[in-house]
């Protein structure tokens, strides 16, 4: 299972990752972070396919991904 790390205080709550995730497993928090934004979080981690869409989309480099081997990469990046 890939590890998605969203740096809470780096997130600006733009929700772009939420819409980018093909698995629909990201959601927005109810809390606000230090910057005052509702931040993104992984809602359903086990279903993550490590496709990196979320990270590629994030304008704030708030998402890092770790995993074993290659999983579902729709395209080279």
């Amino acid at each position: 299972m890939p590890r998605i790390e969203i740096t809470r205080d780096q997130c600006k709550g733009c929700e772009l990752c939420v819409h980018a995730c093909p698995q629909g497993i990201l959601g927005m928090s109810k809390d606000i972070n230090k910057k005052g934004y509702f931040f993104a979080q992984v809602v359903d981690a086990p279903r993550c396919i490590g496709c990196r869409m979320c990270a590629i989309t994030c304008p704030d480099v708030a998402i890092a991904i770790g995993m074993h081997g290659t999983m579902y990469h729709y395209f080279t990046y």
Partner: protein
Amino acid sequence: MQTVFARPESLATVSTHYCPGCTHGIIHRLVGEILDELGVRERTVGIAPVGCAVLAYNYFNCDMIESSHGRATAVATGVKRARPDLCVFTYQGDGDLASIGMGETIHVANRGEKITVIFVNNAIYGMTGGQMAPTTLPGQVATTCPLGREVETAGWPIRMAELLASLRTPAYITRVAVHTPLHVAKAKQVVRKAFQHQLAGRCFSLIEFLSTCPTNWGMTPLEATRWLEANMIPYYPLGEYKTPE
């Protein structure tokens, strides 16, 4: 477990001042990733513009120069001519590059300076609060065209990629977008190519990025990506406009 996605070394570990969902951030990251991949961070000098990206000098983890509004390419010319061994890029908005800096832009391209220009076309003046840009679309509302851009008095939006590609000298002119992951991935290849051209001693390269400005377009980030897709891409077709002869 190996890290397959993380902040590139060429991006400083700071939070940017960009608005939520602003694609300036993605474009920064792409440049950072390519500087890393090509291993040139330590011999790169970037030129920041005046525009929302004015603080780019804090965001790239390489030597940076802040230039006056519109003159980034003249500054880059000075750097590159002084030190041809350096990898030099500018990062400029549409007001900066296509309005006040138009003269410098055409001439730097036409002189064939061996630099790479990252051109962020968001169809608006972001930093100053949403005035009309040379790239603002017909009918698009901005604070200095409150009833929407009128082609009759303000002319058609300028397509910089096409304009520059009509010059004989420049090596590589391409337009990309970054509003979907796929577009981002494609754009990254283009950024790589542009820097590779420079490193190979080929002359001027420019990448026009279609970019969002949720704040001044008055939209959510997601709406902005859709507006870009629906309105900007038809007027500003993506693709390579010029490749080295």
